[in-house]
């Protein structure tokens, strides 16, 4: 399978990465090289093979549903580029 330039731009938008036309073009050829390489997986007969969900058999441990941390609003926003009163600031999203 291969991708066209529109698909590259659509995927870039889905991934929220702005690309220029030139970048889209070079990503297109690189992505197609990789898709060409992974095409060989179609040679493998995977009928009846289980899809891997966990690389080693492990029972998921669950912790008690208890509050163990929190009340650290200042620490949570400490690295944010823009904050006010311990809230993250973003451009206006509702009219």
């Amino acid at each position, binding site marked *: 399978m291969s991708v066209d330039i529109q698909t590259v731009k659509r995927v870039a938008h889905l991934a929220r990465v702005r690309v220029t036309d030139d970048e889209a073009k070079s990503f297109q050829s690189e992505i197609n090289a990789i898709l060409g390489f992974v*095409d060989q997986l179609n040679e493998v007969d995977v009928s009846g093979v289980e899809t891997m969900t966990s690389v080693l058999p492990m029972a998921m441990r669950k912790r008690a549903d208890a509050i163990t941390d929190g009340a650290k609003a200042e620490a949570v926003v400490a690295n944010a580029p823009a904050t006010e009163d311990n809230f993250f600031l973003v451009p206006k999203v509702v009219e």
Partner: protein
Amino acid sequence: MTELTALTIAELRDTLGRRQASAVEVAEAYVAAIEAANPSLNAYVAVTPDKALDMARASDARIAAGEARPLEGVPLGIKDLFATEGVHTQAASHILDGFKPGYESTVTANLWADGAVMLGKLNMDEFAMGSSNETSYYGPVVSPWRSEGSNAKIVPGGSSGGSASAVAAHLCAGATATDTGGSIRQPAAFTGTVGIKPTYGRCSRWGTVAFASSLDQAGPIARTVRDAAIMLKSMASVDPKDTTSADLPVPDYEQSIGETVKGLKIGIPREYRVEGMPEEIEKLWQQGIDWYRQAGAEIVDISLPHTKYALPAYYIVAPAEASSNLARYDGVRYGLRVECDDIIDMYEKTRAAGFGREVKRRILIGTYVLSAGYYDAYYVRAQKVRTLIKRDFELAFEAGVDAILTPATPSSAFGIGAMADADPVEMYLNDIFTVTVNMAGLPGLAVPAGLDSSGLPLGLQLIGRPFDEQTLFRVGQVIEDAAGSFAAPKWW
């Protein structure tokens, strides 16, 4: 007396224990070595001399009180992927500009609890995506190694290139590293150092910047097999904060070193004899086989038929998981932000400015293979192939194989910029021998085994049963004993 920075971790432990040097003297020697070398090697992205000296002073107090812990006073470098409280943690990416976490990763917390001293943060490929340490926002790391008769700069491998270069150049006694497709073992092989990717789940992933969560594992890069064993013992733990960390006791790995390998079965997988493999690699592998025969191990030919599909399956699974993990870098909660009036514009421009090319390409591939209509054809199929890859190994181990011997890389290190015009798949082929191990969740150890005709290091890889790192250390020591150790001549 030998230079303090020339001592291995095991030697340092004895030297400090006998009070032949203080932890502060050792830390000062390393800080001076880093200052002198880093302008040439670019191995560290942040040096923390004050922290190192504070920690060393605390270690000296412990030693004086007879309360030394297993890594007391041992200066380590930390890959920039591990969260270190209040210290530069940016995964060598522009998008994490200025990020200083308010918490410590479990792996580094374990090391400090055992008395280790932090020297600083080590350069790496951006978000651990790369095999040459050329994708770092902070510029490429230079290997201390050079081809004979040449001044050309050589890559240390990647993504843990800063870790490998720093260990090889004696800019730390040992380093933390991570391995998603070969990022510990390939740079170790390129720099004549020892690196182990433990079994998936052996070390907690908490506080380690995520790349591909089902493949990522932390491990050490060190100068000797014994040093790697000492470090892994401290790094590994079960952790309530990582449900995939294994609830198994951590053995004293060092005790396995020196045990005989007589009677052990070493598997040689025929599928690793890949087309176009340089004769030197083939010879090195045969040399390894001969060493094991001489040591009394039994050599058995094995087959891992799905080997060739590991790399293509990896290049679906890893980017898919990365595209999801890296969605968190949005310019809102941390790091870089490109201000815009519209929020979608802000996301897109922030991520365009903050991520490097290799990272963007993997995000795009990952987004594509997970997008509607392609999920089954790519992702699900790759995860099924992964089941088959793992089964290949299980069958070999069920047949009685104790460890599998392969080359670590298909070549020695190449020059910086040498792969600039190559298609991405060519760079990915660096991981052809290592990536199978991540896909199957197994432990893999890279040990230096010789030099090629131009004087650059080459390594062999040993693959073990799940959670049987002990056997790898025991078996790996045979290579080290036979091959000796390799040090880069100092030019910096």
